[in-house]
């Protein structure tokens, strides 16, 4: 059987008047007919660039194909991508929000492709589009046809984008990180949809992702990319069972679904008073309203009660919009609470007396620190790493001025950054290094509690594993209390001894991780756990559990 899409010795270079850099280095890859190929690699490995080259959408004019060929059904398509883009190869992107036209209805956007590539008239296009919407899982395709992108949730938008890509009956579908921006349960649904589509339409699919778990469960073959090269490829079971290249081994080893260690039962005696004691916390954000209209509120947190004990590693999990970040910001005093009480080491942060509240906040500022999600955004771009640390140390006033430089160096040592990073600006660091600097800044406070809000979500898997290991080491060595907020349950299972599951602003389950992950009490928790992508290729998507029928609807 000949390959459906064949890439031979493809190289792409970045050319500037000053330099030439090879971004794709001699790529050779085949996609069989009806095959589901997973392309795995970290950010910057060139996996997206490869697919963009195939459909002729190089992101910059300074990029040039220097050698190689791309053949579709044995016909060279390189340089003639216009004829195949959309018609024979469809593409879906990571962020459906920015790839859908916000002022055009979903239906119109599908019809556009139908009219262009298939020459359908308006009425026929509409019928066809409605059918497509049904096929990708819209519960009410007639109504969704005339809805706009903002009326849908992220998962539905991604479905709409798949419908657009399918509109011209492509033979090949390239999906560039289609589920990265989505919650796990939705991710599982989209992956299942891709599999169904392949079966129904005989599509060949290339799935680009950074998550080995995603490809392990969905694809037939896996290709691992690194620094513009394919380091290894092969049938998924063979590759996962016996990886040859050290990088693949490292990727597999750092996948969070594999290691189950580190979650010994709660070892704390609760005879000490809790660090945080949260009672019936309510947070309401004003929403809409205006001069004459009555303001409505959106309840982000509903009567949340929680006790956090000293030395504990607590994971807070939930899907986007479940209120976990709001909880973090509110207990750190960055968000006003609408009702309820927050005690930090016995000091009331929600006291009515401004003086008491002030005292509580002062204590909080010296005892708790936060690590943020986006490592680049969390550091002041104009201050070097050293200056950032020195500022905190100086502000705390515990370190004598002469010692500050040395102490900043020690903090860098603690987070595993070389001291040579001190004079560097955040923009010259990688994401992982930035995040380490962010953690060093939190440690500079010399806190008793660290609240980490999705602090590994933006990082590559291997870096994620390193940061998680760093947190584990810090909590074990220093007896730090860690509140670790994440949507990735696998990481929480690895790191935390107790887990709190949030859903729609409420705590639905709270218990030791070992117990919660083994025997979840609530169906929502069970659904979340089932949706974790597993690196075991024989485990079906979503643990084989059928999805609850269409949870999400157009608003």
């Amino acid at each position, binding site marked *: 059987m000949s390959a459906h899409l064949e890439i031979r010795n493809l190289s792409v270079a970045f050319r500037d008047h000053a330099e030439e850099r090879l971004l794709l280095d001699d790529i050779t890859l085949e996609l069989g007919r009806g095959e589901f190929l997973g392309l795995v690699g970290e950010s910057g490995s060139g996996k997206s660039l490869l697919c963009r080259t195939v459909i002729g959408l190089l992101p910059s004019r300074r990029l040039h194909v220097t050698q190689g060929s791309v053949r579709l059904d044995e016909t060279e398509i390189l340089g003639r991508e216009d004829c195949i883009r959309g018609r024979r190869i469809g593409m879906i992107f990571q962020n459906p929000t920015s790839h859908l036209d916000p002022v055009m209805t979903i239906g119109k956007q599908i019809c556009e492709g139908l009219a262009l590539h298939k020459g359908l008239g308006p009425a026929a296009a509409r019928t066809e589009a409605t059918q497509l919407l049904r096929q990708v899982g819209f519960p009410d395709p007639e109504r969704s046809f005339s809805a706009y992108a903002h009326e849908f949730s992220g998962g539905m938008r991604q479905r709409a984008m798949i419908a657009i890509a399918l509109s011209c009956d492509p033979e090949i579908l390239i999906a560039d990180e289609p589920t990265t921006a989505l919650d796990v349960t939705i991710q599982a649904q989209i992956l299942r949809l891709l599999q169904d589509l392949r079966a129904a339409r005989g599509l060949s699919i290339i799935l680009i992702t950074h998550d080995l778990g995603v490809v392990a469960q969905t694809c037939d073959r896996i290709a691992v990319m690194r620094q513009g090269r394919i380091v290894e490829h092969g049938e998924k079971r063979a590759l996962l069972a016996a990886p040859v290249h050290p990088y693949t081994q490292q990727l597999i080893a750092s996948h969070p679904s594999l290691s189950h260690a580190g979650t010994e039962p709660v070892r704390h005696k609760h005879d000490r008073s809790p660090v945080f004691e949260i009672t019936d916390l309510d947070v309401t954000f004003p929403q809409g309203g205006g001069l004459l209209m009555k303001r409505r509120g959106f309840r982000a947190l509903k009567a949340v009660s929680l006790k956090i004990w000293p030395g504990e590693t607590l994971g807070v999990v939930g899907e986007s919009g479940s209120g976990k970040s709001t909880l973090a910001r509110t207990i750190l005093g960055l968000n006003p609470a609408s009702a309820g009480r927050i005690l930090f080491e016995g000091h009331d942060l929600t006291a009515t007396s401004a003086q008491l509240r002030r005292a509580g906040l002062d204590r909080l500022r*010296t005892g708790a620190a936060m690590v943020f999600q986006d490592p680049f955004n969390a550091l002041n771009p104009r201050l070097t790493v050293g200056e950032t640390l020195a500022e905190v140390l100086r*502000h705390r006033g515990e370190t004598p001025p002469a010692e500050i430089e040395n102490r900043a160096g020690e903090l860098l040592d603690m987070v595993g950054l070389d001291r040579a990073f001190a004079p560097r600006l955040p923009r010259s660091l990688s994401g992982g290094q930035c995040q380490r600097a962010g953690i060093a800044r939190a440690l500079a406070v010399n806190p008793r509690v660290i609240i980490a809000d999705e602090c590994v979500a933006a990082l590559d898997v291997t870096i994620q594993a390193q940061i998680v290991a760093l947190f584990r080491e810090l909590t074990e060595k220093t007896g730090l209390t860690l509140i670790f907020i994440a949507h990735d349950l696998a990481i929480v299972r690895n790191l935390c001894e107790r887990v709190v599951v949030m859903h729609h602003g409420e705590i639905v389950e709270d218990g030791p991780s070992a117990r919660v992950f083994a025997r979840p009490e609530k169906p929502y928790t069970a659904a979340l756990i089932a949706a974790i992508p597993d690196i075991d290729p024989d485990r079906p998507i979503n643990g084989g559990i059928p999805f609850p029928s269409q949870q999400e609807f157009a608003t």
Partner: protein
Amino acid sequence: MTRPAHPPLRPRLSLGLRFARRPMLATGLCILGAFVLMAVFAPVVAPYDPILQNGDITLLPPSLAHPFGTDNFGRDLLSRVIWGARIDLQIAVIGVVFPFLIGTVAGTVAGFFGGWVDASLMRLIDVVLAFPFLVLMLSIITILGPGLGSFYIAMALVGWVSYARLIRAQILVLKTQDFAVAAQSLGFSRLRIMFRHLLPNALAGSLVFVMSDAVLVLLNGASISYLGLGVQPPLAEWGVMVFEGQGFLNQAWWITLFPGLAIVVLAFGFSLTGDALADLLGVKE
């Protein structure tokens, strides 16, 4: 712990090479530098006294002895243009610095605090903007009495609004960024967050605007002097000189042309530098 000596992080380019890569910046800075030198060394460079009148040589056309010619009082125009650089550069600098300082502080405070502080400052800006610029300037100067001092005060009172709006918009964006929230969560004071964390990240746009604003202020100063409310004769200032030459435009064009040219070239220097800075700092206008 401020940037200790470590191996350089980027290959350092020599100053000459860096300028060679940015011809716009190099040209702009050269023009500005030439004017500054001219102003500083005016007594040395200028061939004649700029104020001394000489009835024997009135309205001479440009010649070797008087390259820019002489005016109706027999003063050497080249010397007057050179001495004029002193006053005009002063106008451009002082006329920009105070509005910039006031506007920056006002904009930072408004953007950071929001609420009623922001609302009242913004309304005040609306009031200032509601009047035509020149009319407002003229009325303030008339009240204070003509002279350069009044011009600077009027400039400061009117000119800050553009800086305030520019900076406020930047601060509004920056204050929701994680590093600002982080600073807050670390318990830094509001002053520190505003001026150490937010402002340096917001300044790039205004610095570029300063350059183009300097051009406008220079022209304003010239027009105010032209209207008789700024620099008073016999002091040499380019705007005043253009005004004085107006009556002789038919007989002696050079009286008007050369100071006018000086204004144009200096303005060109400022805007070149401004554009190059925008490029350098990554500000898109």
